[in-house]
């Protein structure tokens, strides 16, 4: 062993020469974290499985919720309401009295100017349907079939016959047809009040039967040509509603621009304002899901805290040694949090792959809820629940998983970092 006279191996104390490394070499820290998780592979895998399972559940539940909401919105807007509706000022949201849209030509001109070309003019009125010994309160829709077909789906959901085009022809829902035992060519009488309040009635022939799947709608809505209803109600040229179809993203701004352009004699409302029950149900679902997510993340956090606390407790001596080697409390905290983060990262990767796979499968195959749900549908037109994957939600859920893992690693990291090194080294 050569003697080092010129350059002694052991220099004198040079406290100024040593500086804090801050966060010790990150790759080394991550290497230690990975290897430490491999030390008790079964425990690590169990923790990772629990986190990944929670992530899968959240991704799938969220995607199914998205699918349900999308179906609800599509059903709501495509059956009757559409994206936006224009009414005359004073329209109260019901059909107690007819509220005319003044100068409908100016409205259609304004729509064309704003590039809103997918619209349908309507005259709606309440009426009484009489057929044989039975009667029912119904809503009459006076429509132009070609316009209506571009905005809503009823014209495409005729299961028998065809839409009504003549003065005394009518299209009825499957629910009504069954309730009144009406077939194609069957006759029924409609009784209503004309715009002057005079009771009027007319016999119509059933030319078609539609089925939207929304039981409440199919049992109460009848369609006939706009001109026929105007004639029936002595309301020549009257329009009470213009429904507009738009992509979801453009609705709010279009409603605002349209409202500004049309002025105070008109009401412009989005489907959310027209169908607040659907909006509220969606909000309720979202809130419930948020609470569920919070609970799941809390459980995930508890799982990680439990694992990391056990790991920390088992390695008290090791942390004492690391402290003896010169690790600052920050270095030790980084080491423990890195392990928690690695747990979260692996679980996120596994959970995302499986979760996204499940979502894609459920997006194409769906879940048939026929045997589980009531046949009396109100908000949706089918029993097949399909997942709709939102990549922002996937990213957000993964972000929260990693954040939860990091935060859950903090308490054991703090404990490991702030112990007395001498006591830790002698810990048994």
């Amino acid at each position, binding site marked *: 062993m050569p003697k080092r006279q010129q350059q002694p191996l*052991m220099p004198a104390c040079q406290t100024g020469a040593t500086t804090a490394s801050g966060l010790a070499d990150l790759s080394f820290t991550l290497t230690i974290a990975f290897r430490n998780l491999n*030390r008790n592979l079964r425990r690590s895998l169990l923790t990772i499985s629990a986190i990944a399972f929670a992530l899968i559940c959240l991704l799938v539940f969220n995607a199914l919720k998205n699918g349900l909401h999308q179906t609800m919105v599509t059903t709501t807007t495509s059956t009757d309401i559409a994206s936006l509706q224009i009414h005359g000022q004073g329209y109260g949201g019901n059909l107690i009295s007819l509220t005319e849209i003044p100068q409908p030509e100016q409205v259609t001109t304004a729509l064309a100017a704003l590039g809103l070309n997918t619209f349908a003019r309507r005259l709606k009125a309440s009426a009484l349907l009489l057929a044989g010994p039975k009667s029912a309160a119904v809503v009459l829709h006076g429509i132009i079939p070609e316009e209506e077909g571009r905005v809503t789906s009823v014209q495409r959901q005729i299961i028998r016959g065809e839409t009504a085009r003549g003065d005394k022809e009518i299209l009825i829902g499957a629910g009504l047809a069954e309730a009144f035992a009406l077939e194609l060519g069957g006759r029924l009488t409609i009784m209503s009040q004309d715009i002057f309040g005079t009771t009027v009635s007319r016999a119509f022939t059933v030319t078609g039967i539609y089925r939207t799947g929304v039981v409440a709608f199919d049992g109460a809505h009848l369609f006939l040509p706009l001109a026929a209803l105007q004639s029936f109600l002595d309301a020549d040229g009257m329009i009470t509603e213009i429904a507009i179809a738009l992509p979801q993203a453009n609705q709010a701004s279009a409603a605002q621009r349209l409202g500004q352009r049309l002025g105070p004699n008109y009401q412009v409302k989005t489907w959310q304002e027209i169908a607040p029950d659907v909006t509220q149900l969606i909000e309720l679902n979202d809130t419930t899901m948020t609470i569920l997510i919070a609970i799941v993340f809390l459980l995930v956090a508890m799982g990680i805290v439990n694992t990391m606390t056990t790991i920390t407790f088992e390695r008290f001596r090791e942390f004492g040694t690391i*402290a003896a080697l010169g690790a600052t409390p920050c270095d030790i905290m980084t080491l423990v949090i890195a392990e928690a983060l690695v747990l979260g990262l692996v679980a996120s990767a596994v959970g995302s792959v499986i979760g996204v796979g499940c979502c894609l499968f459920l997006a194409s195959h769906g879940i048939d809820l026929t045997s589980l749900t009531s046949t009396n549908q109100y908000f949706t037109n089918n029993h097949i629940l399909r997942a709709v994957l939102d990549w922002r939600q996937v990213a957000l859920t993964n972000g929260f998983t990693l954040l939860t893992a990091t935060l859950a690693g903090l308490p054991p990291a703090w404990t490991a970092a702030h112990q007395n090194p001498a006591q830790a080294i002698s810990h048994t």
Partner: protein
Amino acid sequence: MEPIITVDNVWRHFGHQHQETALAGIDLTIEPGDFLCLAGPSGSGKTTLLNLMGVLDLPSQGRVTVCSQDTREASPRQRALLRRHLGFIFQAYQLIPVLTAFENVEYPLILAGKGHQQRTKLVNEALGLVGIAEHANKRPGELSGGQQQRVAVARALAGQPPIILADEPTGNLDSKASASLMDLLQRLNQELGITLALSSHDPKVIEKAKRIVLLNDGQIVREQTPPLGKALHP
């Protein structure tokens, strides 16, 4: 030359109401180049005193000065930085089981913020010095007790600290490995001028030291130089 460690009227109490006194008024100075051995029976306070000198613990009363820094006045972070000037060897080796011998030696250098090339050079030098270079890529579990303790010595040496503190370094070794390790430590002190402070109750270890400080019931009973004589019998 300024002392590396000064222990000035140090007391250390343990227990709920400080009812146990581990050290009672210790005064000690360690100069550069010393090879000091704290001797004494179990429970005499050897490990407690080494822990205080190694900034692993703080005195209840009195002052421990390491590299001119009063340990009680230092923050936890400053104490950690101070420990980077010290090399530690423990009875149970205390190697990190998931790291190879090379990585174990490298770890304190990483904590000290040394660059990759410098680390590699220092680690290889230290492993070569303790004669364990061929086992650099083995993990502690693949090494014998004697080999593990040599890795621990290399870890203590690699950062070129002014002093190495060793708590019962041969306590877990058989007589052959124990003698080999003590020969190594003695050569490090004699040939490289490395300051050593160790604790032991093994006469074969104690007789290698230049200074023997005999402790009993937390007090220094006497200090002497070898030959050992009746040093272990206060």
